[in-house]
């Protein structure tokens, strides 16, 4: 393998991780305010279907776009509708939990199954079609830089937008006053309320925002990374995203890093697969699930804690802070003023 091949693989990892990053970012925001949207796997299937169908039909209605203008309007329409659907689903879960005081996990799980069926049902006439896609748009000059150019600046607007969003969300959460509020609502809603924060309204707002990103993630698959629609097009990715949110310790940067790590592992599995053709292909499919169990074990069991305790003392505190995994304290708990 020569250098340019390695760079190509790394660049494709960045590209392929984008939908997962969006979903992780969205769910991180949602869970940070204390709401669990467990429906990711179903939501992303539905929005992948809806995004593709909307883009496909818009393109048909507008007529074929001239060769020099890529399918910008259809793609934007698809992404927007997908995001909107994601936001509505997230709001439904938040409403069921906050206003109707029902179990968010139960609602989320039922939605996971229901939305997947709905996606297959409604997308029936759109399977295996070629449709519009997000246009490749290398950034002039910057994309010429060796290594960094192809890695970061030789993609499309969705990729650039997502990478910027990762840092924007981190900055918002940890460096601004509303971000502090956001984290407070998920940790100690009572204290936030006493300080005059409208807890439930903000929970609705951030859950919808998070849901919008999850919806975008679905369409990012069907319009950019895994083009088109077919039955159960991306099933499983929602669960992977939910697991990486935990692995990322509910932190946007670590979540995005987790998505990249996941991409790296899949790339390694792909390379191994071509190197050892004797091993049945189906067994390589198990890599992502073993990985998911592995990382959850890593953060869930006290293995990491024990590992840190045998390291030299000066390293312990920073490492513990770096690897700290604590769910938002009020996660999944409804906040009522009477309690």
């Amino acid at each position, binding site marked *: 393998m020569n250098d340019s091949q390695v760079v190509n693989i790394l660049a494709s990892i960045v590209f392929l991780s984008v939908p997962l990053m969006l979903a992780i970012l969205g769910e991180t925001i949602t869970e940070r305010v204390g709401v669990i949207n467990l429906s990711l796997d179903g939501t992303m299937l539905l929005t992948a279907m809806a995004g593709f169908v909307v883009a496909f039909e818009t393109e048909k209605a507008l007529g074929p776009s001239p060769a020099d203008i890529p399918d910008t309007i259809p793609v934007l329409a698809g992404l927007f509708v997908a995001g909107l659907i994601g936001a509505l689903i997230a709001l439904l879960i938040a409403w*069921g939990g906050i206003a109707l005081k029902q179990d968010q996990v139960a609602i989320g799980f039922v939605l996971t199954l229901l939305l997947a*069926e*709905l996606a297959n*049902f409604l997308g029936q006439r759109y399977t295996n079609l070629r449709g519009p896609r997000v246009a490749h748009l290398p950034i002039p000059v910057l994309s010429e830089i060796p290594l960094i150019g192809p890695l970061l600046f030789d993609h499309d607007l969705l990729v650039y937008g997502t990478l910027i969003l990762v840092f924007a969300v981190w900055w918002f959460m940890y460096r601004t006053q509303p971000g502090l509020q956001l984290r407070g609502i998920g940790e100690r809603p009572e204290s936030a309320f006493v300080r005059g924060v409208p807890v439930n309204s903000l929970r609705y707002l951030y859950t919808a925002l998070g849901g919008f990103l999850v919806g975008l993630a679905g369409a990012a698959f069907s319009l950019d990374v895994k083009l088109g629609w077919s039955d159960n097009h991306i099933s499983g990715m929602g669960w992977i995203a939910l697991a990486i949110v935990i692995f990322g310790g509910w932190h946007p940067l670590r979540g995005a890093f987790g998505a990249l790590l996941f991409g790296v592992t899949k790339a390694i599995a792909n390379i191994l697969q071509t190197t050892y053709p004797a091993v049945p292909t189906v067994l390589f499919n*198990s890599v992502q699930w073993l990985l*998911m169990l592995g990382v*959850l074990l890593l953060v869930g069991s006290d293995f990491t804690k024990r590992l840190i305790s045998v390291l030299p003392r000066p390293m312990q505190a920073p490492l513990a802070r770096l690897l700290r995994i604590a769910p938002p304290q009020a996660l999944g708990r409804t906040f009522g003023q009477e309690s």
Partner: protein
Amino acid sequence: MTHQSVSARTVLETIWPAVPILMALFLITMMLMLVSSHSPLAVYDALWQGAFKDSASTFNTLAFFVPLLFCATGLLITYTAGLWNIGIEGQMIMGAIGASWIALKVAGPNPNLSPLLIITLEIIVAMAAGALWAALAAVLKTRGGVHEIFGGVALNSLAIIATNYLISSPWQPPSGGSFHGTEEFAESALLPVFGNTHFSPLAFVLALIALGIVILMLRGTHWGLQLKALGKNPRAAFLLGVSSERQALYSMMFCGALAGLAGAIRVLSWFGRMPQSVSGGIGFLAILIVLLASFRPVWTFIIAFIFSALLQGGAQVHLITQLHSSLSGIIQGTLVLFTLLFGDFRRLFGSKTVEEPEVS
């Protein structure tokens, strides 16, 4: 509050559970009118015809009912203990793999063994396989800190991958074809079925016994009480000396054993071989059933029957109207979603005895 208004309220509270169901049916009817060229009535008629047209379809509805009932019965135990056994699909698949292993490797080469012995062996191995797969999810939770939902999802996928591996490599039929499943099992390995259908009366009786045992266990045994305590208030249960780790393990294994048995029934009476997709979503469907029944055994029984009719009818709808076969899943999911959201009268409108503090 006058006497009159109280009784009107009581009546409303009694009939309330029908309201979310009607809402769901209304919504589905609207959706059908929007997306399908057939009238919703024609679609519902096709559903009904598919499930109960003649004795063959009725018995096939029952053939779906049996594994569903096993899974739902097992889930009554895990839900009582406060556990989300999402991994039930994988436990079913593992049971099917266990039963297929006996059918292919023991019954196949030894045609003279008595069917009774083989079937007993198949059932035992299937239950053990399901229980072990469930134990894995339980240990991941109690020792590894992996929530049973995530452990279950991963173990489900791994079980599907195991099936794909088996039917494409070691258990591939001599005739080739990589993902069509194994060859047909020997006659002696199959469960006796009713006439020309897939319905096994023996399995049905076993399912009824299992449900009866679970009802009695939850009502009147020490274990049932411990599980209830654990499900309602884990901390109090801990203080009373109930080991949450052990109870989680036992209840998951109990459910896994029943799910494994359900998987065995699928391959030994429905398919007669090991296909690529063993479960057909029955495990997840059982979760929906138990949620819709709010963990009440009698309602679990009734809803499991209705849902198996929807499952059997759904295939027919696809043949008649060309609508995607996921329609039955949509109906089932919408019913459960609306019941979860709006089914609890007292939560929606407050309790009549205890006035909840006003939330301003």
